[in-house]
């Protein structure tokens, strides 16, 4: 497996949808290619860090104001 082949399998690998035969090849490739091992690890961390951090605040005041505005509009439309 080349590094390009490895990259093309990355999405299916993360989604757990990779074909078992290919999975073995991916794992073998990571063992012998440090660059791809780093790409795999740091891409995994990229996904995790965005999933775990709420990067935009949604304070209660804003939420209540928005909620009220939405319901006023919807009631007006019905």
């Amino acid at each position, binding site marked *: 497996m080349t590094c390009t082949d490895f*990259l*093309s399998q*990355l*999405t*299916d690998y993360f*989604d757990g949808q990779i074909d078992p035969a290919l999975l073995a090849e991916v794992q073998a490739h990571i063992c012998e290619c*440090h*660059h791809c091992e*780093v*790409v795999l*690890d*740091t*891409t995994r*961390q*990229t*996904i995790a*860090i*965005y*999933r775990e*951090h*709420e*990067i*935009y605040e*949604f304070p209660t005041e*804003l*939420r209540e104001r*928005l*909620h009220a*505005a*939405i*319901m006023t*509009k*919807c*009631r007006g*439309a*019905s």
Partner: protein
Amino acid sequence: MPAIQSPATDEIHPDVALVERAKQGDTAAFEKLVRQYERQIFRVAQHITQNREDAEDITQDAFLKAYEKLDQFQGNSKFSTWLVRIAVNESLMRLRKRKTGKTVSMDEDVQTEDGSIPRDFAEWRPNPEQLYGQHELGDILRKTIQGLPPGFRTVFTLRDVENLSTEETAEALGLSVPAVKSRLLRARLQLRERLTRYFRQKNGVPKP
């Protein structure tokens, strides 16, 4: 031997009953749906537009549109996916208005491979949370996702931030599953590359 009953595989989502009641004019039922998804819709809109005021307007417009078009919701998909699709369309429309003369669509930026080929192979050590405080980390994450082309940013937001499945993401964006996968790969790799500038292992002060 007693028959083993298999559990129902297609459980009805609780939203279905709320949507049915809302269709009959029950605004309290619709209000429950608003409560349930307002945070998600606001977050999606803010991720795509990168603008809080736009995100506020889009959240209101998306729910109003959903309310007015409730009869068109057939229940073939989840209500939340349908709602996200409305919010994504509103958000992309808003971006188009802002950038007059510049196209903003799910099809742009797909021709270029720039930034999607890994070039920086530094490890992230110590891990980002050890390296930066919450506030600074938030700034880095916002700045970095802001630099992604809108089409990639949108796919990444739905799939990785909102945790929609690949199929749901495809449905919400009107794209094929392979198209979502291809954009998602590039979005993840571009973000990884850009974040490595901040998080790379280095002796001394990390270089921004």
